[in-house]
């Protein structure tokens, strides 16, 4: 579904400095696969998502989605960000329909689907409420509906539960899994929570500090449907340990190097 080949991204800041964000990324994401991406902050995780979405051009390498080279934005994606960024003047229902309007699709044919998604995410009866009347977790559910309404093949999620409290976060993760198991899609999910990355994923991509390179791709061999109890599983702990050492080891090496 997604194929990245030797992708490199260097930003030029307003002041003219060069920032090497990601380096030499080669990765294949299969159709309907759930891939999570972990790494320290600033390592280029958001950049990688934007590259896949065609929102920023790669400096080097090629990105293909469904065998087509990505040269700009394409509408077959659903986005989820850390903040729900709903439109405060629109009701919950109209926020979900926002995608349809912006895509220039016929609203009428999607109304039933919007209702269906709202009840799937536990928001039945909230259609006419405004975002300010909802909790952070509920607002993020509305954003999920907005990302799913046009039935995109690819979901790009950039730390979507990062701003929520730990309990809501866990609940939302499981809910996302439930939705995904119900109707499969390819999901590329960025997080800086290692347990979250393992709990959700078929594969975890671990990135090094900037410029972000792939340190390891870890196949998660845990049964589905998953539950939070898995965190006490020995395999879960082993995965967690492996990821941690990948992220932190290179840094300590470098620190030793500067000390020497």
């Amino acid at each position, binding site marked *: 579904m997604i194929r990245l080949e030797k992708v490199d991204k260097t930003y030029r800041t307003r002041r003219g400095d060069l920032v090497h964000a990601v380096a030499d990324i080669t990765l294949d994401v299969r159709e309907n696969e759930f891939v999570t991406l972990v790494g320290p902050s600033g390592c280029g995780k958001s950049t990688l998502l*934007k590259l896949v*979405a*065609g*929102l920023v051009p790669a400096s080097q390498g090629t990105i293909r989605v469904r065998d087509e080279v990505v040269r*700009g*934005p*394409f*509408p077959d*994606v659903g*986005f989820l*960000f850390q*903040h729900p*960024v709903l*439109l*405060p*003047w629109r009701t919950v229902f109209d926020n979900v329909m*926002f*995608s349809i*309007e*912006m*895509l*220039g699709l016929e609203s009428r044919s999607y109304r039933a689907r919007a209702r269906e998604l709202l009840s799937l995410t536990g928001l039945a009866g909230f259609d006419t409420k*405004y975002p*300010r009347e909802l909790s952070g977790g509920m607002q993020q559910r509305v954003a999920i509906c907005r990302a799913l309404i046009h039935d995109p093949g690819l979901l790009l999620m950039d730390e979507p539960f990062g701003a929520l409290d730990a309990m809501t976060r866990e609940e939302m993760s499981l809910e996302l899994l439930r939705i995904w198991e119900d109707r499969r899609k390819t999901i590329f999910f960025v997080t800086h929570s290692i347990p979250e990355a393992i709990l959700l994923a078929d594969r975890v991509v671990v990135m090094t500090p900037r410029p972000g390179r792939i340190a390891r791709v870890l196949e998660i061999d845990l049964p589905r449907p998953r539950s939070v109890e898995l965190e006490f599983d020995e395999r879960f702990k082993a995965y967690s340990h492996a990821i941690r050492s990948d992220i932190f080891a290179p840094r300590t090496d470098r620190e030793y190097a500067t000390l020497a």
Partner: protein
Amino acid sequence: MPRSLSRFARDYLLPTGTLVAVLVLWEVAYRVFKIPRFIVPAPSAIIAETWEWRFRLVEHTWVTLYETLAGFGLSIAVGVPLAVLIVYSPVLRNALYPLIVVTQSVPKVAIAPVLLLVLGHGEASKLVVAFLVAFFPIVVDTATGLAATPEELLDLSRSYRTSQLKTFVKVRFPMALPFFFSGLKVAITLALIGAVVGEFVGSDKGLGYIILSATSYWKADLAFGAIFLLSLMAIILFALVALVERIVCPWYAAEQQQ
């Protein structure tokens, strides 16, 4: 019911009561200390004089109101497109922003006489002074508002391949409305001040002219009456802008209350 009653008392009764108390104290002080009428007149004298001059005052009030609203309207008509240009074009931003800031640092009172020279003693020169002072907050606040759309929403719109115009209409403009209105609230008050300053510099009409000529004839009570009318006008204009804001972006008012 008792709660809304106590809120009514807090929001309206209390300030009104304070105002009445101040006026009564003023009147009493005037009589007790025998303050000369031409320095500070008593409230009773101001009311009497204002009533006496009511027809003329209404005419002059209209003139000042017209100058204020025309200058205000012009500042919206010029300020909003300018803000859009500044936000959408980095080249224009670099070209225009310094100029706008420079025009803002010129004291408007200082250029008012020059404007009079160029535009004459009529209403046009006052309107232009009102425009000059009012347009800055409108440009700055509208531009700030247009630039305040979260990056994520712009990314989202781009991923849908929505046109710039549609993104502007559906996302950026409504997002900027609360900022636009906060600029308007500053601008309407400044426009009134600009109009009065224009009248001070040279005119034979308007409440500014009344204040100036009344004081030169030692008629402080009439001047105070005109000042009172100006304040009333400022309050009403501000309240009208706030009312329109609440009608146009009710979501924002609701957010503020939380």
